């Protein structure tokens, strides 16, 4: 089964990415985790994301397009990255979620993916 691991991080975590004293441990932990996931051969896809300040969001209402700066929610935590992994069951997905650095300082949401839509013949 495929599961998406959604890593949510607070602003302090995004700040650590560029802090000369804290960036090393931050990226070291993520690199080690990402390599371990890759070595396990379970990665379907995944990426880390630039901080929320780089986000732009779009809505279309009544044919009119609205484009705005920033993430769409004033949440305390923001999406920092994700993996889609292929593992036998939820317990295995939770184990990989717990190993992520975000589990210790942010949170990780684990969700099964939908099967792909049927392709036209």
């Amino acid at each position: 089964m495929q599961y998406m691991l959604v890593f949510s991080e607070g602003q302090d975590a995004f700040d650590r990415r560029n802090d000369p004293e804290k960036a090393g441990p931050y990226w070291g932990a993520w690199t080690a985790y990402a390599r371990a996931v890759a070595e396990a051969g379970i990665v379907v896809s995944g990426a880390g994301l630039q901080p929320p300040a780089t986000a732009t969001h779009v809505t279309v209402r009544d044919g009119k397009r609205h484009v705005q700066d920033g993430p769409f929610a004033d949440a305390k935590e923001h999406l920092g990255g994700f993996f889609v992994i292929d593992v036998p069951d939820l317990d295995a997905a939770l184990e990989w979620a717990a190993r992520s650095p975000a589990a210790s300082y942010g949170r990780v949401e684990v969700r099964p993916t939908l099967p792909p839509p049927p392709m036209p013949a």
Partner: protein
Amino acid sequence: MSAGSAATEPRAAAELAARTSYGRLLAYLAREWRDVAAAEDALAEAFAQALAAWPGAGVPDHPEAWLLTVARRGLMRAGRRARTAERLRPVAELLDEERGAAEPSGSIPDERLRLMFVCAHPAIDEAARTPLMLQTVLGLDAARIASAFLVAPTAMGQRLVRAKTKIRDAGIAFRIPEPEDLPERLDAVLQAIYAAFGTGWDAITGTDTARADLAGEAIWLARVLVSLMPDEPEASGLLALMLHAEARREARVADGSFVPLGQQDVGLWRHDMTAEAEMHLRRAASAARPGRFQIEAAIQSVHAERARTGRTNWPAIAGLYDLLVTLAPTAGARVARAAAIGEARGPAAGLAALEAADAPDNYQPYWAVRAHLLSGSGDLQAAREAYERAAGLTADQRVRAFLLARRDRT
């Protein structure tokens, strides 16, 4: 139980009764009614009534007997509603047989051992055994159990419900196994208790990553078991093993950082716990029936000697692991044996043993031990890679930071 005498405050009295006698009451009711789930519901209702009634009426002289009576009344009502007359007939006989013994003295027969054997019965899903024991014998709530085992709460709830339905519908008996079955059945009970303590205990680096945050509860269960089966050396061995490990809890973290066993400040070890562990291990050894848990406790006992001698006797530890892997050939034991061989006879011998250990994929202790042995053998590039892999596989951020720091120093 002397819960009544100390209890001036009704809520405190109810909580004390819950803590000290939940398992006893539940075990007794579950055996009497042969239905764990119904007994749990009735007991929960009885505790709720106690919280409502005791503040006004005062705490009864025998709180346990009070709770038992109220719970039984609830079970009778539920039983009438369910019209389970056939099931109640043997129960009525049991009631007649045991009521006389149970109530006048105010002491309730201790059926917790039978309940433990039911929870760890081979017919019960192995993944449900430990959670079931924690819930029924100690009264832990399902959400906390689910978190400790890294399982979704709804999934854990379903697992527990299925197990209780199976006990009732399959008619699993509340009895102590026959002597010929006892060793195997007792082993299932011990394994279930140890699973609550945490499975990733690794003697060399101390990377107890799978530690399930229920150590205190596991020790409580083992104490109950030892008190109920004082002549079973493996029960005492398990208790000794867990006490040894628990004695080092404070020493495992210094200034927020993880400290491996070999570098721990022995002054921070709980010597009262170590002494208690030694007492249980000696008592177990006097039976002259060695087993897996006694040997693991003996390994921890050798580690504990460092507090007295200032050094670790690695050849002795390696020898004990040789014995352990013949009795309990688990991946954890084989990997820890390789680590001990590495200390006793050098990194090359350790690496050879590690490669022969046949550890599962993505097994964190394998990578931690491999990194340590490779750095000892001078293969620094491979050691750094193994440290990083071990860091990527741990769920403990202190261990992760420790391993990455090791990588950077290698």
